[in-house]
């Protein structure tokens, strides 16, 4: 514990950046976004440095641990630590933030320049909370970050969003609040059932406690409902399309790409780890809901006429896959779901941010307002297609590996479920390719002639994302090596073992 507090520092840098932005003298106000980008890049550097301290061979459940008593009277500790799953999510978040900041560079028109520092500061605050929520190993601290994240997002949507931003922001808040309150009740109930004491909210203290089956189910449900709202699973998904459609693309990316991951991450960290019995009890229902999400999200995506809503619905489908993998409970499906969370973050960023580039050029989010744009902006069309291919999980891109692992792991236990879920793969081809067809193909629209193609700044936005798609597709090993020990540890701790191959594995099975 005497070591460098990596996680605190990673979380603090953006917060400091935000404070600097708010305190900025008027003379420097046009430097606000440069400072914000700088802060996020420094955060990224520290996060990478911190990740290098992380050992995939370690036997410890959590690494980079920090633990301080916070409110001992109520058992609350300031406790941080990460396993491979949490660390990979933190890395994804801190990679996405500078990309999003760069994408949001010209979001505000010149006459609103005075609001710029506020806009960028909110994103930095959000980054702090994102790091915190994935790093928290104290249940109460997690809850605090979980709720605190709503605040910057609420303002990002409500103050900087589209025409229906207030409706969307309130809807987002109400859904999240409802979920959050239910979780709060569950958090308290969990503490009451736990050993208590000055550090009674610590995950390590709460894991493995014996709960009466009835109690366990109730507390599980409290957590699960909150996470299901956050991850948006059908039928509590309806806030997401509105929130995404009324957000700026950069906000939508952080909202769907990172924030919603707290839902699926929470399912692994809390639902499965703390309530394995109840999780297994709920599995049939959750699997059905996950399947419904996969198919419903995909079908709804096909039927959308708003680019941002369309992408939001594809995410609902993808979250269905992630939840499916989590509740299939095999090491393969878990590695797949953990990796899926990372890939989905990048691929959603690609879709939202490139959509943003199109929308800012056309001045409309409506798909019918496009058409034939490949003839106008071929470079943009190319990256749009690549982002789409990542969304449909084309083999060779990272999203394919994770989707396949989810399904292969699911197939081991639930063949029928896996077979039905593959329908989502076909539908994915439809929603992506129809979207591409409607926006990019067809005769050149004369009205759009002269629209500029990708600018240098935009190239820097998409280049890291495309590089990540391809690298993670052909060389996913670094991420998989990071998450696999965590997956194995958790599955062992909740006493779930993988189904053995039907035909005894031959000696060459690792080949």
């Amino acid at each position: 514990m005497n070591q460098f507090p990596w996680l605190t520092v990673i979380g603090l840098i953006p917060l400091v950046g935000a404070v600097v932005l708010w305190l900025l003298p008027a003379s420097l106000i046009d430097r606000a976004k440069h400072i914000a980008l700088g802060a996020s890049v420094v955060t990224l550097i520290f996060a990478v440095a911190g990740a290098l301290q992380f050992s995939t061979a370690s036997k410890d459940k959590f690494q980079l641990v920090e633990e301080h008593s916070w409110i001992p009277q109520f058992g609350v500790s300031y406790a941080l630590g990460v396993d491979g799953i949490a660390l990979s999510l933190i890395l994804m978040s801190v990679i996405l933030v500078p990309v999003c900041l760069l994408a949001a560079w010209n979001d505000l028109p010149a006459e609103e320049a005075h609001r710029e520092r506020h806009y960028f500061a909110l994103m930095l605050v959000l980054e702090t909370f994102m790091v915190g929520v994935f790093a928290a190993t104290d249940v109460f601290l997690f809850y605090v970050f979980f709720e605190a994240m709503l605040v910057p997002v609420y303002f990002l949507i409500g103050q900087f969003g589209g025409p229906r931003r207030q409706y969307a922001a309130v809807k987002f808040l109400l859904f999240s609040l409802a979920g959050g309150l239910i979780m709060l009740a569950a958090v308290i109930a969990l503490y009451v059932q736990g050993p208590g004491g000055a550090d009674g909210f610590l995950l390590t203290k709460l894991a493995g406690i014996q709960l009466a089956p009835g109690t366990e189910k109730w507390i599980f449900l409290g957590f699960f409902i909150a996470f299901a709202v956050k991850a948006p699973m059908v039928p509590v998904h309806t806030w997401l399309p509105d929130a995404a459609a009324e957000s700026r693309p950069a906000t939508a990316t952080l909202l769907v790409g990172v924030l919603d991951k707290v839902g699926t991450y929470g399912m692994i960290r809390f639902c499965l780890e703390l309530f394995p019995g109840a999780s297994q009890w709920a599995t049939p229902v959750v699997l059905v809901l996950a399947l419904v999400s996969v198919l419903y999200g995909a079908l709804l995506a096909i039927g959308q006429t708003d680019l941002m809503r369309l992408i939001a619905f594809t995410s609902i489908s993808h979250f269905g896959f992630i939840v499916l993998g989590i509740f299939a409970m095999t090491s393969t499906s878990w590695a797949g779901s953990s990796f899926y969370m990372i890939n989905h973050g990048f691929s959603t960023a690609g879709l939202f941010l490139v959509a943003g580039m199109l929308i800012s050029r056309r001045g409309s989010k409506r798909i019918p307002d496009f058409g034939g744009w490949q003839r106008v902006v071929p470079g943009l069309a190319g990256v749009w297609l690549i982002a789409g291919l990542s969304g449909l999980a084309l083999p060779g891109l990272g999203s394919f590996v994770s989707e396949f692992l989810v399904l292969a792991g699911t197939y081991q236990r639930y063949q029928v479920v896996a077979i039905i879920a593959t329908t989502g793969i076909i539908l994915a081809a439809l929603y992506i390719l129809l979207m591409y067809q409607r926006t990019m193909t067809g005769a050149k629209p004369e009205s759009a002639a002269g629209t500029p193609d990708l600018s240098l700044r935009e190239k820097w936005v998409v280049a890291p994302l495309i590089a990540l798609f391809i690298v993670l597709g052909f060389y996913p090993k670094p991420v998989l090596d990071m998450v696999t020990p965590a997956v194995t540890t958790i599955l062992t701790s909740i006493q779930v073992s993988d189904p053995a191959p039907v035909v005894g594995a031959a000696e060459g099975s690792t080949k």
Partner: protein
Amino acid sequence: MSLSLTTVAGMSAGMPLVGDAAAAHAASGFAAYAWLLVAFPLLGAAVLLLGGRRTDSWGPLFATAMSWAAFLVGFGVFLSLLGLGSEERALSLHLFSWVPAGQFQLEAGMLLDPLSVAFVLLVTFVGSLIHVYSLGYMEHDPDKRRFFAYLNLFVAAMLLLVLADSYLLVYVGWEGVGLASYLLIGFWNWNPPYASAANKAFVANRVGDVGMGLAIMAMFWQFGAVDFQTVNAGVANANQGALTVIGLFLLLAACGKSAQFPLQSWLGDAMAGPTPVSALIHAATMVTAGVYLVVRSHAIFDAAPNAQLAVVIVGAITLTYGAIVGCAKDDIKKALAASTMSQIGYMMLAAGLGPVGYAFAIFHLLTHGFFKAGMFLGAGSVMHGMNDKVDMRGFGNLSGVMKITWVTFGLGWLAILGVPPFAGFWSKDKIIEAAFVGEGWRPWVFGMATLIGAGITAFYMSRLFFMTFHGDKRWPKEAHPHESPRTMTVPMIVLAVGSAFLGLILGPTNGILHWLEPVVGGHGQEHHPVIPAIPLMGLTLLVVAGGVALAWMRYWRDAVPRTAPVGSLLTRAARQDLYQDQVNEGVLMRPGIHLTRALVFLDQRGVDGAAGGLAALIGGTSSRLRKVQNGLARSYALTMLLGVVVILGVVWVVQ
């Protein structure tokens, strides 16, 4: 697993006597550079796509050079294999650790064996020729750089497909070629129907790809791994039902990629792509990947007779279907596409027959790759000379003005007919012979399908040939048909030479049988078709001659009407591809559209309505919500505070 196979595999000491890939040695020497096969064309694609307009001038040549470089590497690997004893011709090339995830562990690697190398030679040789041809064909297209980038991408993906040593890596190549195909079919996608054709191809392929994915999942479930070696080793102990399921999933995959019934509908529309693409992807290579998959998975199919039967049935249906459709098409490319479908049906059928057919399936695949690519290039040459017209009713008597095209096309025509000694005679007739082998009803049904199919093939190919090159001149005055430039005719000549002699080189010498024996096993003992071989050959030639004669009477001797006559019920159905699109539309598309619309409505009114109602209940009407939104942040803070107080209270009480 056949006996001959185990004896072949058993030659390498210390390895289990299980199958082909199990005997693979680590590649050394020149073969260790086989990864360059994929790397060269991939580099070409990357340079052209990332280089942008700067590469416009030299890009196409660079891409062509990359393709030839891949051919040279492929030829080198072929020579290295040739230098080994036939039983040692299986080299494995480890690349890197790809997917290490919990129970699922997979290394990326290549398998260099006679089957994969045969494909490598076909793909790189025909592919490179078509690159050269495209230099001429696409000369005036403003986007030709992009075209060559996609061609290179295709070659890279196709080589990955055939060289991969695990099913998951095959899958990468499998969808990679699908992507290249999508991009190239939609190359002129400012024309809306072409964009739709591209989508249709990708989606129909994706249905097949899901079969591939499911097959791999089922393999992992059964064997705990998805590399060829483990899967082949596990087959002996697996339950036949599970193997049948895997086999059927693989068949679904093959149906998508190879345009086999019931996933055939995309191939005709795929002719929207530039003709060199039709020749390379939609005739010679990609569409035959399904046949490769079945032959590569022969261990599974050999142990799952019901899945094998399904393969044969699919092949028989498709070969008949394609042949019927081919008789009614007036669009020269669509007629060739129908023919491709039908010919792949032959290969599929042969692959489903088991050890008696594997080698001939691949043999016909190779010869077909030459003659069909040659004919497509010929069709492209005709279009080039006829202002991109494709309606054969507007052609006729072109033999005089396009002599090279006529002769090269003619050789392809003789090859596909199976006229001795041209290529098809050695490959297709062997499939017919193999289809007549067996007991009970099967040889009669499948044998007759191939035999009648040969007759229909002769009819529609002769119809195509005569309508284009012979009979009366039907083109308008303003058309000035002319021979194509050298860049186009030279590849056509090379392919025509292949069409003429490839069969002669590989057939009577049994070269192809010996070459493939280490992979698919020996041809087995003497097989006796239910009709003896020599009379059967005579019968086949008779049927073929009948088809040609009929076509001669109707499309050479008699005048061909400029507009198509109404035709019989069957003709009209065949023109509509036997109503495949109407069926798909009625069964899948329309219900799908209605379902989507209904769900969109339901989501807004139902699910969201319920949630909105709940919200209204909590916070008043939504309009009031909007008015009070400024206060809402405060009330939120209040709620948070309240929450904290509640916790503190509860905790205090508990303690």
